């Protein structure tokens, strides 16, 4: 760069500033990356190709399946991400290609690792919801719900019914907004910018309701151990009714735009398929598992809150391909609307959080009147409330699958260990199986149909 003056036209270039060479900062992740075939053991080759799932127990890897002996110069390893236009966050995919066909895939994650589980050990249970809510940032209320359920299980408190029903209402609205967001970004990945605008338009209605109720559009910190932070605002039934009617009407617009459209169908049907055995073996849950035909939805099979009292269908697919997952999410929006309408009729009056002053801060007005209320308020917000010693694993159904919270308490006011089982973290293990044998052009659509949210993958 600095010796351009030696070249042709040396005097012409002298004195002109050159832009500095682009940074050569290393972004390789060493052993975490996909290595060439020569550098990879046959076991790992099999694993990366997804062939390990097809091995019956006791057998050795069938080298014919994964073509171990293929010379390296026939294949090409390319890198997608971590910064790339598909809007699924900082996921890096290394793909081994033979022409246009994808052979092996390796997702490299960790680009959004925030140390949230370590941070959780420094925050009290009152503050914990603010931390947990930022993991799966497309359905924050569900993260808060699983954390609150885990804390309440260890505390041994009973939540008033109104709080439970409010939580259910918010969970279902959250599921709707997450699936609408998915439909928007999925449409965008397939090239339909109209769907992106439509999806966000509907989502804004739901976010406006959240802002009215919780104060924030995202990362609400509203569902807390003990109940919810505040009661629903006046007129909420009308707002919710408008949301339900509008969104339901518009899901039929999406049917016209996408579902019946031949190009969409051809791009989605048969692409990225996975079988039920493979999905269960890979610990995959949520719409991906349901698309393979397994009717596993925690709201139905292991109900929490009051889902056992409500009437809704579990949407199940047949082929395990992208189109099934799209159809499942679209219909889950409709099922959520159905659930919200039932919840609206059945929310009972009452307290919105448990009355135990040791857990729930007293109403602000009472602080002026009662010394005890002031002391409780102070203790809860400085030290926090102590949770009895124990450990629990709570799992609920998030829009992406089973989200679990493994909470260990040592009797103090801060969790000893908080682990969130992120559904996307586990679902990403299905990527090699889903992409294998497909075209690279389908890779973006398939990744999109897994619906990964990197916040909960990396935590």
């Amino acid at each position, binding site marked *: *760069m*600095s010796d351009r003056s030696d070249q042709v036209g040396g005097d012409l270039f002298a*004195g002109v*500033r*050159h*832009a*500095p060479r*682009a*940074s050569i*900062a*290393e*972004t390789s*992740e060493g052993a975490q990356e996909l290595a060439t075939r020569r550098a990879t053991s046959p076991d790992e080759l099999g694993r990366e190709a997804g062939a390990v799932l097809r091995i019956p127990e006791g057998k050795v890897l069938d080298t014919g399946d994964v073509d171990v002996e293929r010379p390296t110069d026939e294949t090409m390893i390319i890198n997608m991400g*971590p*910064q*790339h*236009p598909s*809007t699924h*966050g*900082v996921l890096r995919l290394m793909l081994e290609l033979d022409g246009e066909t994808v052979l092996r895939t390796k997702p490299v994650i*960790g*680009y*959004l*690792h*925030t*140390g*949230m589980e*370590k*941070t959780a050990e420094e925050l009290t249970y009152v503050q914990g919801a*603010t*931390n947990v809510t*930022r993991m799966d*940032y*497309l359905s924050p209320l569900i993260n808060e719900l699983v954390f609150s359920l885990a804390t309440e299980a260890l505390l041994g408190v009973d939540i008033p019914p109104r709080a439970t029903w409010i939580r259910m209402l918010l969970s279902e609205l959250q599921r709707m907004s997450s699936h609408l*967001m998915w439909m*928007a*970004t999925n449409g965008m990945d397939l090239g339909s910018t109209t769907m*992106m*605008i439509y999806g*966000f*338009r509907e*989502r*804004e209605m739901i*976010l406006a309701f959240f802002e009215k109720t919780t104060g924030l*559009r*995202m*990362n609400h910190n509203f569902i807390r151990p003990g109940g919810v932070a505040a009661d629903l605002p006046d007129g909420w039934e009308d707002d919710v009714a408008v949301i339900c009617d509008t969104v339901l009407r518009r899901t039929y617009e999406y049917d016209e735009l996408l579902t019946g459209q031949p190009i969409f169908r051809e791009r989605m049907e048969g692409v990225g398929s996975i079988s039920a055995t493979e999905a269960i073996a890979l610990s995959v849950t949520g719409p991906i598992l349901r698309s393979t035909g397994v009717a596993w939805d925690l709201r139905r099979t292991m109900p929490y809150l009051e889902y056992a009292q409500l009437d809704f269908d579990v949407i199940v697919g047949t082929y395990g391909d992208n189109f099934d997952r799209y159809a499942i999410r679209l219909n889950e929006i409709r099922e959520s609307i159905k659930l919200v309408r039932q919840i609206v009729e059945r929310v009972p009056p009452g307290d919105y959080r448990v009355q135990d002053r040791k857990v729930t801060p007293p109403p602000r007005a009472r602080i002026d009147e009662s010394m005890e209320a002031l002391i409780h308020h102070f203790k809860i917000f400085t030290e926090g409330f102590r949770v009895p010693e124990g450990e629990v694993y709570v799992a609920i159904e998030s829009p992406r699958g089973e989200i679990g919270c493994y909470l260990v308490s040592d009797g103090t006011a801060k969790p000893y260990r908080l682990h969130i089982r992120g559904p996307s973290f586990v679902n990403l293990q299905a990527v090699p199986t889903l992409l294998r044998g497909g075209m690279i052009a389908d890779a973006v659509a398939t990744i999109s149909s897994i619906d990964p949210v*990197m*916040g909960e993958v*990396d935590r």
Partner: protein
Amino acid sequence: MGLEDLQHNFLTGRLEDLVKWARRNSVWPATFGLACCAIEMMAVGAADFDISRLGMEVFRASPRQADLMIVAGRVSQKMAPVLRQVYDQMMEPKWVISMGVCASTGGMFNNYAIVQGVDQVVPVDVYAPGCPPSPETLLHAILTLHEKIRTGAITRRPERPGGEPGEQLAGWVPESPDAVRVATPR
């Protein structure tokens, strides 16, 4: 003979205004959405808040074609070199908006994993606070950036070590992204 060599006088004043008008009215952002702030950034790009009226709805995938990098979200230690590489690939003139508290200062995550402020890695022009900033806040940040472009010099250059304009910048390397790594704490 580029714009950099223009002497500032009354003849070129109008030309500068024209250049600055052109630059601020079609600032094309690079996609650098990382976490929750990225969702709000996408909401700004959607119909309700419409960044297209500012000429910015084309989020360029390639940093070579982008003018603005909106760092939306928390930057982890693993991502910092990638951030620097993308910034370096952008062509001058370029600007950086640090969106959200995580990008501005590390936010609520003051720990081993998050870079405490993206200005340790790239020079930032506008900071937008919020967790996440609502779309109105981001629009305000963008308009602040427009103001900065409108009132700034054309040939604004970030500070460089040992370089005077006109001098050959031999062997210039950007500050090493390793500098942002917090040492293994005790």
